[in-house]
């Protein structure tokens, strides 16, 4: 068991990759064999994510190291070297937290797809891309190396755009695929440029080494700007969010949820770079306020644009964009005060990080439910729906749970994290809290619109039947997560969120010291 736990970080990347390249071969044996294989891979990945989280959170989020190809997996510096040269995976509380999110979303997405994608062709390629995307997201979250971060970023870009444009017979999906791929590539290249700038100055690519060597020169600041803008685009912060509704709206429904996990991984990369790589070598107050401004724009524009959408998936997509803003707000408040480190800064960080998990669970639930609705009615236009609650009782209840949770209605999980964000941002400036609360209320209004338009109304002819059990089980699982995290937030905040926030807020020295020794 300990050996498995020690190898968990690399297995989290290697097993989905095995799945990605194995699926086309297994797929030749038939559909049943393929689905069994994909399910097995998804379960194994989730199990290893659980193992990793158990070991990391068991050690209260202390960082641990995995060196690829070394004489031992914990030896970062070969004899006679002062710079880590091998490929390094470094996991601390934050990485393990993100790995849990990714495992939850990809597992439910894969199992939902078995039923959702049953009567469509091209399933083999679909699962292959899903596995590749999973591997890429895990890679982004676990790597301890800037260049590998870029590589995994591009792996997720390619796999994600393959999935967005997967339905080649749909006009709009091709348009979305081109736009998203072009913007992802452009932002990815700027990230690479920043990596090059850092390498040119310090001669290393390891995050811990770079963090120990950074001086905060003008070139460092330029690199930071490139990284900030590039990753903000991939995370979908306003005004760089225009691709996000296209992407989430046009991808197959379970993949929209995985794309949200992908955006969160980019957000994780941004936080890792701001807190661990740059730390206090730069003006954190200014950076924090840049994040806060982006966050306020994201929250407000996302919600108000969601209000006027008539396409159900595009509407939920704008809702997802606005939730990215809450994470940015929480962590931005934390970053803005991270010199003085007052208590409310840490609370804000907790809120922002906790919201990542909660958002993934309820947005995942909503996208799966929207997939059910679109599949059942054959349209995405809200104006042509109505009365679905007569025949799809369970789906409507699940949708309502997801919508309430996302809008921050107590006692669901969205409220628990938003509560922390409201309280802490109020301490910094009441205006922030006002915008956050107001937008939450607007978001509830948005989902009242969806619920009224799609589920309520008189019984009509040709109402679709309740969804098969294969699609119901993943949705129920996500709804259970939403409710349990809503009813027992204290437990989860103590056990997993606080170590994750600690890793960013206080963990820089430990992160560096683990690789370079001493710190």
């Amino acid at each position: 068991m300990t050996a498995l736990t020690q190898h968990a970080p690399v297995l989290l990347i290697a097993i989905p990759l095995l799945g990605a390249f194995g699926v086309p071969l297994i797929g030749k044996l038939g559909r049943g064999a393929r689905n069994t294989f994909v399910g097995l891979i998804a379960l194994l990945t989730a199990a290893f994510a659980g193992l990793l989280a158990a070991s990391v959170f068991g050690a209260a989020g202390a960082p641990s190291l995995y060196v690829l190809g070394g004489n031992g997996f914990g030896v970062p510096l070969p004899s006679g070297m002062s710079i880590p040269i091998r490929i390094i995976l470094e996991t601390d509380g934050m990485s393990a937290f993100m790995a849990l999110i990714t495992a939850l979303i990809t597992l439910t997405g894969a199992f939902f797809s078995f039923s959702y994608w049953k009567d469509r062709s091209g399933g083999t390629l679909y699962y292959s891309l899903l596995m590749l995307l999973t591997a890429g997201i895990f890679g982004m979250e676990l790597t301890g190396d800037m260049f590998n971060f870029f590589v995994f970023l591009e792996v997720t870009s390619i796999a994600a755009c393959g999935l967005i444009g997967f339905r080649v017979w749909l006009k709009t999906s091709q348009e979305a695929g081109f736009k998203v791929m072009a913007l992802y590539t452009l932002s990815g290249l700027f990230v690479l440029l920043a990596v090059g700038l850092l390498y040119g100055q310090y001669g290393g690519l390891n995050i811990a080494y770079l963090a120990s060597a950074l001086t905060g020169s003008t070139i460092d600041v330029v690199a930071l700007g490139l990284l900030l803008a590039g990753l903000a685009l991939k995370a979908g912060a306003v005004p760089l969010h225009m691709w996000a509704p296209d992407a989430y709206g046009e991808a197959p429904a379970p993949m929209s949820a995985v794309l949200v996990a992908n955006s969160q991984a980019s957000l994780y990369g941004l936080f890792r770079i701001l807190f661990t790589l740059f730390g206090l070598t730069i003006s954190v107050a200014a950076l924090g306020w840049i994040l806060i401004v982006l966050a306020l724009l994201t929250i407000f524009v996302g919600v108000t644009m969601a209000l006027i959408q008539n396409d159900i998936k595009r509407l939920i997509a704008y809702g997802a964009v606005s939730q990215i803003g809450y994470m940015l707000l929480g962590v931005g408040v934390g970053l803005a005060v991270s010199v003085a480190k007052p208590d409310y800064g840490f609370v804000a960080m907790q809120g922002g990080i906790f919201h990542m998990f909660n958002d993934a669970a309820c947005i995942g639930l909503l996208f799966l439910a929207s997939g059910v609705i679109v599949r059942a009615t054959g349209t995405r236009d809200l104006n042509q729906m109505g009365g679905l609650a007569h025949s799809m009782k369970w789906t409507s209840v699940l949708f309502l749970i997801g919508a309430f949770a996302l809008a921050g209605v107590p006692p669901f999980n969205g409220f628990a994290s938003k509560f922390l964000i409201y309280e802490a941002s109020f301490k910094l400036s009441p205006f922030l809290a006002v915008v956050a609360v107001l937008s939450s209320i607007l978001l509830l209004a948005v989902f009242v619109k969806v619920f009224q338009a799609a589920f309520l109304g008189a019984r009509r002819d040709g109402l679709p039947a309740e969804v098969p059990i294969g699609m119901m089980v993943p949705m129920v699982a996500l709804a259970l997560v939403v409710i349990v995290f809503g009813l027992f937030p204290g437990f989860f905040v103590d056990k997993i969120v606080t170590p994750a926030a600690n890793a960013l807020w206080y963990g820089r020295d430990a992160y560096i010291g683990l690789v370079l020794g001493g710190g």
Partner: protein
Amino acid sequence: MNIGNLPFVVAALLVAFGIYTFLYKRNLIKLVIGVSLVETGVNLFLVALGYRTAGIAPIYTFAPAAKQMVLPTPQALTLTSIVIGLATTALLLSFAVFIHRHYGTLDVRKVKELRG
């Protein structure tokens, strides 16, 4: 100006041309070319980073024979970035093929069904 800085200037120019192409050209294929130009600029920047004056190719057995070797890491980075660029370009061009099939045009200003 030091002649050794010339590659960096060229890299910056390539990136600038690429962004210009991306922003001001209307044909989707030209947009892909713009992305490729940016990528080439970044790759050139990476390779130029690793260059050492009078350095030799970084072959292990030659190590003591020459004083300086060109840094191998940026070359490995460039190679990886070329591989990724190949995949993204192929994907973008396939999307362009399908867009032309569906929309009958490659004009970026007319491919705007998804808006608002």
